């Protein structure tokens, strides 16, 4: 198999050389003749409508079919998309975006500010009932909350088109990371006439009109998505890939097998397989930080949560007793980082407080844990029985089993309760759990996307952690000159109060064919753009 592959590559290169001497317009690298790219999707894309989509995989496709005000470069910095630049008012609440006049839809019509106004109103429209309507609230666009609640008419949303190429957005309070939020798929423009002509069918390949670098050719649920370059795209000359296929493969191991058989160009590596693959395919296996954080939440609800978890000593003991090094080095084995805090350490501008227990050895942590839990009235002689809820997944299961064993040492009898995702989520949101597995991925590259989670007024704070000091810090951070000081202080509160046991911070662990370039793997948010990708000749 291998020799055959090699032979065909050589043949391909030999044949390609005289005919195809194309080079990359910026880097000057020699391009391969074959510019097809096939990547892996775990599940079918649920919706191709930017204002309906809710998942990461869908956003990946949408970033290539549509284009928002800004894009991200290879390392996550903002680069112009439809917007060339913006003006900001003195009170930092009014943004005026100047749109690129040459931006076109795939049917040739120009992209206008009105298209954005329509899309954003659509996202907030209570009748449309987008599951991502809360993103408008998160962006603090004026009147978004009231409109979603049905208390104000849609027209009062703080967004308007001053002319075809000028978009004005008013937000409730200064928000330093507001432009960062505009790369999110739910803010992408859509065409009113197309949506209204076809209804929900407008996302079918034959009807869809997009303004991204690629166009949808085929979308077969559970099988594949096929995309091809959009000739009307303003930067079409620099789009290099010619044919992109996303294959849905529900089984991670099957996907890896098919990558190894040469059917895919990019695939995720299952837990535990990275070291072997990295040794065997050093040019293909990668592990890079990804902005997600994995935790066990303690249910601190005074009524529904277990009494023992009200005691900070118990929470600390549980957190200390987890041997994170074993989890990342022996269970996951994909270059993930052991975690002693909540915010992903690589988040832009974030400064880690000095968390004491992160410097201890595991033996010291175990000793301290035993001491604390004994003080609290439990321990090996008087076991504490708790239940951990986690959702079905091979990796979650492995970590849970390991933690169960770690906690045995300090006399905690942990029952594992595996549930499918919907039940797990439902129980978490109703505080119907003792401990729950959770992971949060940043919406944008700034620490508040993590830290807002534990405010008492957050909708996501399922463990019901309450700290006035924490709330105060987070509120102040919204208008502060340097919010990162508050973020560091807030993290210190989490480390002291331990409302969650942090476990590890994600890495993206993947196999990528060695001739692929422009994959955005250095972008912490892992937001990639097909228009940046290309294959080099080898």
């Amino acid at each position, binding site marked *: 198999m291998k020799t055959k592959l090699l032979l065909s590559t050589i043949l391909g290169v030999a044949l390609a050389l005289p005919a195809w001497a194309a080079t990359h317009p910026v880097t000057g690298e020699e391009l391969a003749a074959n510019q097809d790219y096939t990547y892996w999707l775990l599940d079918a894309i649920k919706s191709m409508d930017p204002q309906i989509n809710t998942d990461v995989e869908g956003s990946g496709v949408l970033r290539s079919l549509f284009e928002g005000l800004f894009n991200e470069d290879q390392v996550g910095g903002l680069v112009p998309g439809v917007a060339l630049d913006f003006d900001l008012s003195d009170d930092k609440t009014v943004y005026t975006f100047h749109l690129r006049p040459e931006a076109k839809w795939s049917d040739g019509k120009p992209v206008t500010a009105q298209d954005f106004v329509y899309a954003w109103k659509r996202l907030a429209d209570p009748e449309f009932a987008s599951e991502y309507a809360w993103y408008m609230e998160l962006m603090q666009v004026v009147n978004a909350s009231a409109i979603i609640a049905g208390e104000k008419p849609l027209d009062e949303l703080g967004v308007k088109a001053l002319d075809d190429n000028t978009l004005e957005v008013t937000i409730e309070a200064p928000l330093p990371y507001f432009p960062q939020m505009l790369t999110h798929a739910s803010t992408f423009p859509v065409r009113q006439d197309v949506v209204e002509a076809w209804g929900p069918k407008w996302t079918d390949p034959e009807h869809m009109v997009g303004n991204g670098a690629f166009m949808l050719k085929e979308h077969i649920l559970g099988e594949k998505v096929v995309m091809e370059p959009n000739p009307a795209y303003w930067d079409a000359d620099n789009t290099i890939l010619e044919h992109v296929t996303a294959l849905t493969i529900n089984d991670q191991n099957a996907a890896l097998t098919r990558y190894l*058989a040469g059917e895919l160009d990019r695939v995720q590596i299952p837990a535990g397989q990275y070291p072997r693959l990295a040794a065997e395919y050093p040019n293909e296996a990668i592990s890079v930080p990804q902005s997600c954080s994995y935790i066990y939440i303690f249910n601190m609800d005074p009524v529904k949560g277990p009494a023992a978890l009200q005691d900070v000593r118990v929470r600390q003991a549980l957190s200390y007793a987890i041997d994170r090094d074993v989890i990342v080095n022996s269970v996951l084995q994909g270059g993930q980082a052991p975690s002693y805090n909540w915010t992903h350490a690589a988040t832009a501008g974030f400064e880690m407080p000095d968390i004491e227990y992160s410097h201890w050895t595991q033996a010291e942590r175990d000793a301290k844990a035993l001491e604390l839990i004994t003080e609290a009235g439990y321990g090996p002689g008087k076991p504490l029985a708790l239940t951990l809820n986690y959702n079905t997944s091979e990796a979650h299961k492995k970590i849970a089993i390991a933690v169960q064993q770690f906690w045995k040492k300090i006399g905690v009898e942990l029952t594992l309760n595996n549930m499918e995702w919907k039940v797990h989520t439902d129980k978490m949101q109703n505080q119907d759990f003792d401990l729950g597995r959770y992971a949060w991925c940043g919406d944008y590259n700034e620490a508040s996307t993590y830290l807002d989670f534990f405010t008492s007024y957050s909708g996501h704070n399922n463990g019901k952690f309450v700290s006035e000091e924490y709330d105060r810090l987070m509120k102040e951070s919204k208008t502060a000159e340097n919010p990162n000081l508050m973020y560091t202080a807030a993290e210190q509160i989490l480390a002291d109060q331990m409302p969650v046991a942090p476990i590890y911070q994600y890495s993206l662990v993947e196999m990528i064919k060695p001739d692929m370039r422009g994959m955005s793997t250095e972008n912490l948010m892992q937001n990639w753009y097909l228009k940046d990708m290309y294959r080099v000749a080898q």
Partner: protein
Amino acid sequence: MFAFIARRLAIAVPTLLLLVIFSFLLMHAAPGGPFTSERGLPPAVLANLNAKYGLDQPMWRQMVNYVWGIVAHFDFGPSFIYKDRTVNEIIAQGFPVTLTYGAISFAVAVVVGVGLGVSAAIWHNSWLDYLAVGISIGAQVLPNFVMAPILVLVFTLWLGWLPGGGWEGGQWQYVIMPVIALSTSFMASIARITRSSMLEVLNSNHIRTAKAKGLPMRKVILRHALKPAMLPVVSYLGPAFVTMITGSVVVDMYFSTGGIGKAFVDSALNRDYAVMMGVTILVGTLTVLFNLLVDVLYAWIDPKIRY
């Protein structure tokens, strides 16, 4: 005969209704709904969504609306999760796929199984018989979720002969592995049933008479033995059909064929009420029809049976 068919169809209606009510209630009793999501929707958004999909109405009302939509317009409603699509579209896309690989598997299982079973019976106690029995028992106990990854490993990764998955409109190279994975255990069961039934028939008086009259063996088998020997095989086809639909879950998962097997499991896990109901009704209807077909076939083969 017609009276029989009519009566069976009349039973089908309450059966399906029962199935609808049962799965509807079961589904709604499950914790979590279609819009339960990690981020936890703000109450206002959730209320809007529930209003949009009619989930704010009382349960009986939802059920009546649902059944009415099907009866009056053959409309199974929109999917709650794949929001760009209706249930009708999802089924229209997935069902032909399942039907294609299912029908081929079925044909392969019947033809090969019957052939193997008949040969084993004719050359009873020969090496061929033992081989057939051995294969058929072995093939029956190997679960298809073990067979599927092994097939991919061998034919895709090691030999490089077949693509590891996909459907591509049903091109032959994409159909082979799903069919092998799905048909093997049915083939084995059919072989075993055919063998014992054929042996029974070959030992019966009328075949003995035929043989005694000096008819050549081939004629005895084809003219006299095969038809009665098929009776138990035919009655096995009904349950086999249902099991095959179940097996399509494994095929869809490993081979990314995009059939309705996976759609069902996903919809149950995602609380996509509409798709779940749609697929259940489809499979229920097919089961009823298929059982009826089997009964008619049975009556046709065995003239002793009167309905």
